């Protein structure tokens, strides 16, 4: 188990994808479930897990669908206005 520093949810790098964050969360859960860690380490992991869970929740709550339109030459342009329809 790699030691990752515990960061508050709003400080977790925003490039971290939801999937990556969730995968980290699962590893933490499994590690804690085995329960062989020293107290201090498990508390750090716990805190980190809570932060990741909060981060994932935020991502899900705040995400906005991004839609673009393919153009010949593999360019894409934003596709807007579909909400009004």
């Amino acid at each position, binding site marked *: 188990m790699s030691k990752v520093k515990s960061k508050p949810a709003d400080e977790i790098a925003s490039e971290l*994808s*939801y*999937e990556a964050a969730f995968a980290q*969360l699962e590893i*933490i*859960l499994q590690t*804690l*479930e085995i*329960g062989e860690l020293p*107290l201090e380490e*498990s*508390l750090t992991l*716990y805190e980190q*897990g*809570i932060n990741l*869970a*909060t981060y*994932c*929740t935020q*991502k*899900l*709550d705040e*995400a*906005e*669908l*991004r*839609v*673009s*339109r*393919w153009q*010949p030459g*593999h360019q*894409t342009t934003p*596709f807007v206005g*579909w*909400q009004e*329809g």
Partner: protein
Amino acid sequence: MNPITISALNTHILALFERDDLLRDVWVIGEVSNWKRATSGHIYFTLKDDGANISTVMWKGNALAHTWLPREGDQVLAHGYVGVYPERGVYQLYANRLQPVGRGQLYAEFEALKARLAAAGLFDAARKRPLPVAPRFIGVITSPDGAALRDILRVLTLRWPLVEVIVFPTLVQGSEAPAQIANAIVAANQYAASGAALDTLILARGGGSIEDLWAFNDERVAYALIDSQIPVITGVGHETDFTIVDFVADLRAPTPSAAAAAAVPDRTDLLEQLASVQRQLSEQALTVVDLEARRLHELRLRLRRVDPKRQLDLRRQSLDDRERYLRSELRRRLERLRERNAAARLRLDALNPANVLRRGYSIVQAADGTIVTSPAMTAIDDELRVRGAGGEYRVKRIK
């Protein structure tokens, strides 16, 4: 006599036709002959039965909206209006819709294509690829103006707005549609191959008649799907509509909305899952802390047992105990001694010579103090001391 011009006459006839309900909106049944598509795109042909025929024209716009068009000799149902062409003084049928009679031919074509593709193994279950559970990029191949796209985007927004959508615009009905759809599938794959990410494709079209959906029964589209490196979900028409692409796709969804729902997880479920993960984590942390607290408590108890101060206390107490014991023991012994003393005194009292003297006896002592117990111990004229209870006096042995 009041003559009018030919133009006026034809215009009058035209007006008569336009007033007539039947001529304005009519279905006719007949056989197609003299089928001719002009360079302008308009189609001219004759509809006939055993005893009559009528010139028919279908404008380009209407023709393009048809994925199925009849061939020479086909029996068709034609819909349109009957109008006058004043320049030539003829009436003709302006058709906007052509259907094979009883749709039997369409179904026959559909079944034939289906059988052919099935025989080629295009529908094999082994071909179906697993779909990504949570795709990050979804390509949607559909009309950019259709209700299908709006439905898809609405469902994605509700369920999984983390996804990014790239729309590959195409016609979804008409004779041009199959080629455009196939091209859009190829374009999506090239786009992905060029380094952009595309995890899932959705091929969709809203509901319509069997003719409207005909572009999705096209062999070119079927093979474009087979060649796609990206897994494809179809959502064409309504629940009850099945098209060839549905059999070829990795997953067939009954509608465009259902295709979008099938493409992504539901964040509502995920949010619940996350909440339960957080609860689980909290419980685990509490358990860990609890366990450590209990261990600590035990340690503290053990520590107290080995505390030097406590040892000292213990010893002090045992010392006290011993002292108390000693004191009581001493008291007991003194008591015993006292009792023995008293007994001795009683016995001593019994032996006190004074008591004997009081009973009338006397003690005779020689001058040197020796107690005289026999006449042989004294001589005549020896002075002796006699001690009685009342006191002492001197006597002389006379005999």
